[in-house]
């Protein structure tokens, strides 16, 4: 039972991460056994950054998030997101080896700069081995990444195994690089992160155009004489720097998340590179800020993991609500389009049923009323859906109801329907005369395209089909009029 309750609490926490103070109050009763929720006084202390320790950690992780968000944007757009995974796993042997060398030399085994240097060297080696496998064997990207990742990590584990058995030095803290140990962040670490974040932001600004170019079209950039190899090298160095700096804070598995998740979230909101860049930096910074604040508030919550979960919460939010590619917007657009297509189909069906009795005034057929069953049989739509389409068309004034569940095109409805039918028939005529498609088969193609034909396209079709250009309604190719026609 306690297990279930803990799980519920954790789920509530994961969902409520966006507004920790509010949900903390609400969820408090759920989880007394598992999490100790903070008092208001504690909350205030963290928010106002009164503790020196909290201040360092919160500022450090915020800046780290921002830097990773900025650099990660280009990494994501370069389609190399998972390279960061390989690169961060490959740092482990570097850390272990640096520790062993420094301890053997009699120095302080856990000097941060030394460990970071070792990590950087091996992350570069990891990247190079990925490139070597990709370049000189017939294996593809994914296998190259997986091989380097696992072999380097295995080497790291083996070296760590040796390091922990060394008499000199104390290797106990080394494995914190795997999972991160945010709470133990020192002023010096925060300073390193600040410098790295500033450097990353500066480089992203300075090479904004160049990075954008190699992200979107590296081949074009190369033909324009840009040094693509060097630019890639700069970009990858930035990734290496952010990764090794982030190791200490969130651990080598989760630093990947900081590089991938914020830019992935940002791309749901915009298509502009500059906006995406800043948004991604913002998401990263907010994740770092909220995550470390929450973990400072509550005992027993590893900061790295909370930071990543906050970032993931932003991702889920963006995935659904993003104003550019969010699922809500895309679904709404699809529904709108589907609705319009259904309405146009109904209008065309009514028009074609009316044809044969042209109204001398407008050149349109004389509108007659049709009963619901006839309309239902026209296409494969359910009666519920057809009712919905009809009521929408009635409210637009394109169709009017007649007694006995019958429907008729209004004058403006007939005009709108004529437009659709004309598009349909122009396209059919085009397919028959220019694309040499059999008459029996053109209806399907035209049925799809009639809804998306732009006016310029119509004009183009009219010039290609001069016999239809003087605004008259083309005859349907599927109709045989009177005894003259026929086979």
């Amino acid at each position, binding site marked *: 039972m306690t297990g279930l309750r803990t799980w519920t609490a954790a789920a509530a926490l994961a969902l409520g991460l966006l507004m920790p103070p509010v949900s903390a109050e609400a969820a408090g009763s759920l989880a007394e056994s598992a999490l100790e929720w903070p008092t208001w006084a504690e909350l205030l202390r963290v928010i106002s950054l009164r503790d020196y320790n909290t201040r360092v950690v919160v500022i450090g992780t915020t800046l780290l998030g921002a830097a990773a968000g900025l650099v990660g944007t280009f990494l994501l757009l370069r389609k190399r997101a998972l390279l960061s995974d390989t690169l961060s796993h490959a740092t482990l042997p570097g850390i272990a080896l640096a520790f062993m060398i420094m301890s053997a030399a009699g120095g302080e085994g856990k000097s941060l700069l030394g460990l970071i240097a070792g990590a950087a060297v091996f992350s570069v080696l990891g990247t190079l081995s990925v490139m070597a496998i990709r370049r000189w064997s017939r294996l593809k990207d994914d296998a190259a990444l997986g*091989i380097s990742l696992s072999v380097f990590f*295995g080497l*790291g584990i083996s070296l760590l195994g040796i390091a922990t058995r060394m008499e000199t030095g104390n290797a106990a803290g080394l494995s914190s690089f795997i999972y991160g140990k945010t709470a133990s962040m020192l002023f010096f670490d925060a300073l390193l992160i600040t410098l790295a974040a500033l450097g990353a932001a500066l480089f992203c600004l300075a090479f904004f155009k160049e990075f954008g170019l190699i992200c979107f079209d590296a081949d074009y950039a190369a033909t324009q004489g840009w040094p693509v190899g060097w630019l890639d090298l700069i970009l990858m160095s930035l990734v290496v720097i952010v990764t090794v700096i982030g190791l200490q804070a969130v651990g080598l598995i989760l630093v990947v998340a900081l590089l991938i998740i914020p830019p992935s979230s940002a791309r749901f909101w915009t298509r502009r590179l500059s906006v995406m860049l800043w948004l991604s930096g913002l998401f990263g910074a907010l994740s770092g800020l909220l995550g470390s604040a929450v973990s400072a508030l509550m005992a027993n919550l590893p900061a790295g993991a909370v930071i990543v979960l906050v970032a993931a919460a932003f991702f889920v939010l963006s995935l659904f609500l993003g104003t550019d590619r969010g699922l809500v917007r895309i679904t709404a657009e699809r529904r709108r389009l589907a609705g319009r297509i259904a309405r146009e189909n109904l209008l065309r069906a009514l028009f074609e049923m009316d044809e044969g009795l042209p109204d001398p005034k407008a050149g349109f057929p004389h509108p007659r009323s049709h009963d619901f069953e006839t309309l239902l049989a026209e296409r494969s739509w359910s009666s519920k859906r057809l009712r919905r389409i009809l009521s929408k068309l009635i409210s637009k004034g394109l169709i009017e109801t007649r007694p006995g569940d019958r429907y008729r095109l209004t004058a403006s409805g007939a005009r709108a329907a004529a437009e659709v039918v004309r598009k349909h028939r122009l396209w059919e005529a085009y397919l028959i005369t220019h694309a040499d498609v059999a008459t029996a088969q053109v209806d399907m193609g035209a049925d799809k395209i009639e809804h998306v034909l732009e006016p310029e396209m119509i004009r183009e079709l009219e010039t290609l089909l001069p016999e239809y250009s003087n605004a008259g309604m083309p005859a349907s190719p599927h109709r045989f009029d009177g005894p003259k026609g026929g086979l």
Partner: protein
Amino acid sequence: MEWTFIDTWIVVTGALSAMACALPGCYLVLRRMSMMGDAISHTVLPGLAIAFLITGSRESLPMLIGATAVGVLTAYLVQGVHRLSGLDRGASMGVIFTAFFALGLILIRQAADHVDIDPGCVLYGAIELTPLEVNRIFGWEIPRAALTNGAMLLVNILFVLLFFKELRITAFDPPLANTLGINAETMHYALMTLVAATVVSAFESVGSILVIAMLIVPGAAAYLLTDRLWIMLVLSQVIAALCALLGHIGAITVPTWFGFRDTSTAGMMAVAAGLLFLTVFLLAPRYGLLSRFINQALLTLKITRDDILGFLYRYTELAPEDARPVTATDLVGAMRSKGWVQFALWDLRRRGWIRGSGAAIAPTPRGLSEGRGLIRSHRLWEAYLFHKLGINADAAHFPAHQLEHFTDEAMQSELARSAGHPRVDPHRRNIPEANEG
């Protein structure tokens, strides 16, 4: 090195889990989805935690089912996010497995009072300890981990044998599979389920990260060795077993060279896998780096040899009777690369196609006839390019110079026929007759 029955069991357990991983791993490599193995193996951690928190027991079966379910869920979510939002597959994997992993860390920390899932153990595995926990079967004491992994290996072998055709078609050509009535999507998720179950059953012995090594590396190495699927599968099994053996030997011997006792077997298994892969990467008969390099070198040698013979033939053809003999310096000047020219001269002398060295190099009759064949190819190509393709005489030289090395006698006569048996090339030089015999 002291070898006890415990070491034997460690190697057997390691080999069984590595072989179980390598089978579905081959298909991951072929489908270019290796990193899906990585993603799934990271989500084992939250899977175990959730399974524990829901069932409240540390029984194997619920844990196995729970973690497998989360693994399959990962595959679904990755595919779903990729398809719904257009985020590229790598990034969508990165988002999902890191989020799951973070969730797992938190859950485990919360459950730490009740359960002994140690994140470190999940990562590195505890293969050294597996022989301690034994089950008694027919009076034999067999480690439980060996039984689990052996069972998983059997399941995987059965799956591969039963669905060999389906797996092969969906791996190489999913649209074709669909037209043949094999649902590629179903096979995809069946494979993902298998991967997840294998990862979960192997995590205890090799650890979740090192499972990736066993999933990808044997398959990738086998892929470089053969073009036949079933040979690749068999080879991957052999390589996987070798990884386990060499890995454990490495773990208990290599550290002693530096004065340490031993190190993590699982880690060394990954290193052994890496070394085996490196060996294959360098030495594979057809796709290895060395054989590529040698083929390239042999080709360069042949072309340099051809060019020297061509040069000598032209010289004999044009130079007056009393002209000075060709020197090595002349050849180096004409051919840019000094090293290759020296090498080719040595090779030509060895073959008996040229005489003399340094200041006086002359072709033997055999060498002259080889050179003649080459020049015939060259001038026939020029004539063909000029007459049939309308390429102007100056521009025809360069393509002819490249094609001459790959033109045999059958192609020569075909060229001569289609260019109308020309006697001279566009530069008015004689096209030599074909060699007799």
